[in-house]
């Protein structure tokens, strides 16, 4: 988010999802698209059927990588040198879009000088890829008329996540692959409304619509509407809150629809923080691990029991219709917040979701024309949509970047915070699988999905498994410097030797006991994708593994 915003002036998918079916080259990095974003993958597959070339950058041989024309299986955490190498090759081949660079961008010279200092052999050694493959990928991407770059959490969940994104933006601008239909840079958002949460300023330094908290005019506008003074200092980032420790500065927390006890890195620290609170209130539709640790649980209404909007990856604001009345005892999020405010003596003044949306339109220029009556009978509108007659914006930065000119920001390789060593010789990559969703709050309550995938598995290369004395289905203990979990082995040739993979869906094997809380300095996103681990075979299955209790 922060990376794209500083390069292009706006942080969101620049294309629409449907445009992907018509691209000529699609480069996908750090995204297991077929499992995590099937609706995006289906467009990519359609493009490939039409003859488009597919380049996948991923340490794992994912299902999409198996279909790719070029698969660059890089070493985890070496995205920056890989992309820098591509850019250097593009310069060497004379494939840079000089007209685009001259007219639409600034700071190119510093990028050029930076790239000319690089050594391609060294880059290939760092990334663990062949120069010939890198060169083919770079030329394909640069030569095609319509090239698009899709990326996901494999890019952002690193300590250099922001720089990774800046590097992708550099590559797109160098080849002029932005500002046109079917070309662009597309961060794929993980959930149906992550984009909406960012848009509505669930980010510490912003007010809704990416209006800077530091801007006095902006603060004054919101102050007038809300009748209160907006503090100018940014709030805390997620891990600053959940890793505060038992005597942290935050004494009370209200958590809505989130399960940090499973989803945040370094679980023991999160548990300690939550236990140390004077008051923990959790609002959710199911009794999550975090809710079990709360002093007070507020049962919330599910998507079918309330109306409102969600904003997806392609900036599309979609209306959700209420299908049934909330179950007895449950309330919509708006009702929960309003009643809580009323109990504290404050009238929020938004009686209905439609009224709340009107306030958003009033205060947020990119949502200026998003009214419920326009959204209700359509497939939604894509922001920016500044006024009531505006048709929405299918692709961003047409003719000019929203920040004026695009800015090249040279970046250099940053080693992952935690490297492998003799004691912890394997690199753990965490991610998701098709049949489960996030911490399983919803999907693990669905028997059909649970049947498809009911337990955490560690994907491990057969050679590594043999070295550890493991065969398919064997129980093992996976340990990092921060903790250990027990799960079963799944031998997979999709894994590169030295790397193992598992998911964070299962409370029986909470992988975030192991992950490293090291943060990207700007976006404050933890490095979920790399940590050093070791594997030990267990002689017998752990006792009552399924009912294992959390440390809370």
């Amino acid at each position: 988010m922060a990376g794209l915003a500083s390069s292009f002036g706006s942080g969101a998918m620049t294309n629409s999802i449907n445009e992907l079916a018509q691209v000529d080259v699609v480069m996908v990095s750090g995204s297991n698209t077929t499992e995590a974003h099937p609706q995006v993958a289906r467009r990519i597959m359609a493009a490939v059927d039409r003859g488009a070339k597919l380049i996948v950058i991923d340490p794992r041989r994912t299902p999409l990588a198996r279909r790719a024309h070029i698969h660059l299986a890089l070493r985890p955490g070496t995205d920056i040198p890989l992309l820098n190498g591509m850019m250097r090759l593009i310069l060497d081949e004379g494939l840079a879009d000089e007209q685009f660079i001259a007219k639409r961008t600034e700071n190119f010279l510093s990028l050029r000088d930076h790239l000319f200092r690089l050594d391609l052999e060294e880059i290939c050694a760092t990334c663990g890829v062949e120069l010939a493959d890198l060169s083919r990928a770079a030329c394909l991407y640069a030569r095609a008329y319509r090239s698009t770059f899709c990326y996901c959490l494999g890019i952002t969940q690193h300590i250099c996540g922001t720089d990774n994104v800046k590097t992708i933006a550099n590559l797109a601008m160098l080849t002029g692959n932005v500002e046109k239909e079917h070309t662009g840079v597309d961060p794929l958002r993980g959930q149906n409304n992550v984009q909406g949460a960012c848009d509505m300023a669930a980010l510490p330094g912003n007010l809704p619509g990416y209006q800077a908290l530091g801007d006095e005019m902006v603060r004054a506008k919101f102050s007038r509407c809300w009748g209160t003074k907006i503090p100018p200092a940014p709030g805390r980032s997620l891990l600053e809150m959940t890793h505060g420790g038992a005597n942290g500065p935050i004494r009370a927390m209200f958590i809505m629809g989130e399960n940090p006890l499973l989803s945040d890195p370094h679980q023991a620290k999160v548990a300690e923080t939550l236990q140390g609170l004077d008051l923990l209130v959790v609002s959710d539709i199911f009794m999550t691990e975090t809710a079990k640790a709360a002093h007070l649980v507020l049962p919330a209404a599910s998507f079918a029991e309330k109306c409102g909007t969600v904003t997806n990856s392609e900036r599309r604001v979609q209306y959700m219709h209420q299908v049934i009345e909330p179950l007895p005892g449950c309330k919509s999020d708006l009702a929960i917040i309003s009643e809580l405010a009323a109990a504290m003596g404050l009238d929020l003044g938004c009686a209905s979701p439609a009224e709340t949306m009107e306030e958003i339109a009033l205060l947020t220029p990119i949502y200026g024309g998003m009214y419920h009556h326009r959204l209700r009978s359509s497939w939604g509108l894509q922001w920016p949509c500044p006024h009531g007659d505006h048709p929405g914006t299918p692709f961003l930065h047409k003719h000019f970047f929203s920040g004026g000119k695009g800015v090249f920001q040279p970046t250099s390789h940053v080693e992952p915070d935690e490297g492998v060593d003799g004691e912890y010789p394997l690199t753990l990559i965490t991610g998701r699988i098709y049949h489960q969703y996030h911490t399983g709050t919803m999907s693990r309550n669905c028997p059909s999905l649970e049947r498809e995938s009911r337990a955490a598995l560690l994907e491990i290369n057969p050679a590594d498994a043999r070295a550890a004395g493991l065969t398919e289905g064997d129980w093992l203990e996976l340990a990092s410097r921060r903790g250990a979990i027990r799960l079963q082995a799944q031998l997979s040739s999709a894994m590169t030797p030295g790397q193992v993979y598992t998911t964070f869906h299962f409370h029986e094997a909470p992988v975030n006991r192991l992950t490293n809380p090291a943060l990207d300095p700007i976006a404050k996103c933890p490095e979920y994708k790399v940590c050093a681990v070791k594997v030990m075979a267990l002689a017998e299955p752990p006792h009552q593994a399924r009912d294992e209790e959390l440390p809370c």
Partner: protein
Amino acid sequence: MLILSRDNLLPFLRRLSHGRRLVAPLRNPQGDTLYSEIKDIDHCRLDLDNQPQASLKPFFLPQQETIATYTSQPAYGFAPQSHHRPTIFFGVRSCDLQGINYLDLTFSTPGRDENYFARRQGALLITLVCNRPFANCFCNNTASGPSLDHGYDLQFTDLGDRFLVEAGRSRGEDILETWAPFFTSARERDRQQQYQLALEAQGRFSRKVEVEHACRLLAQGEVHDDIWQELAARCSDCGGCAYVCPTCSCFTIRDQPLDAVSGERLRCWDACTLQGFTAMAGGHNPVAGEHALKRRFLHKLKYDVARHGKPSCVGCGRCLDICFGQLDITSFIRAVVARDEGD
């Protein structure tokens, strides 16, 4: 053959629906056309121009149905449950009717499924001939449309300002007799027009799917592994094809506790393409990977042809739109035929 003027359609349906539920394709406020219950016939948008997005299957085999309740206190008890209402289905497409006719076979052998047949026997099915087949339709290749010779209670053909009505089963005859004042006799020009429309409809199919050819090839030999592997690589394992299919009837049984001493036994849709469908308790799966797809396609185009003499695909084309990987049944058929021609 009789004629019902368009003006008399709603009055006819209104009379017919006394004491019975009326289901027809309705356009909902979100713009979707679905077979839905008509609660107020004067204020609903009957949509006879678009293909309903789901088949009739959910009315006979609900996505989830309580088939029994149980208690353990004060005494062990087990009570079978069956919920059905007499229903008139109007505007049913030929393919969907053929889907129900196929389900009749499935649920009558080896044992009779009482819950299914309770619903089936209370159902009166009035079909509507497709004068304009839809983009994905290929029922002309599966002998299940666009019009039918038999199998319906009543079949309507839209002739513009009037409908031509044909009775199939005796229940249909009874209705025409009971409500005779609504109808006039069909004349020669009505028959001519029906014939003309049927010819035009045949010419309007935009897909040619060589179902028969593929069935013959499948009966003769094995499908090449390349085809299965290519399809399996594209399958997202979502089960969407089976859920929208009018003839897929796999289900699973699950016990859902309601409290400490009671619960209900549910029957829910399942899909043989899901990997967990055949997974055993120990984790072993005898039909894993590409074999799961094999099961579905061969069932429809090989085993059912051997058993019933015709494939159990009715050519409705719904799986074409739902599939994320474009590995619907038409691509399978295309691949099988192309492979044969290539050899």
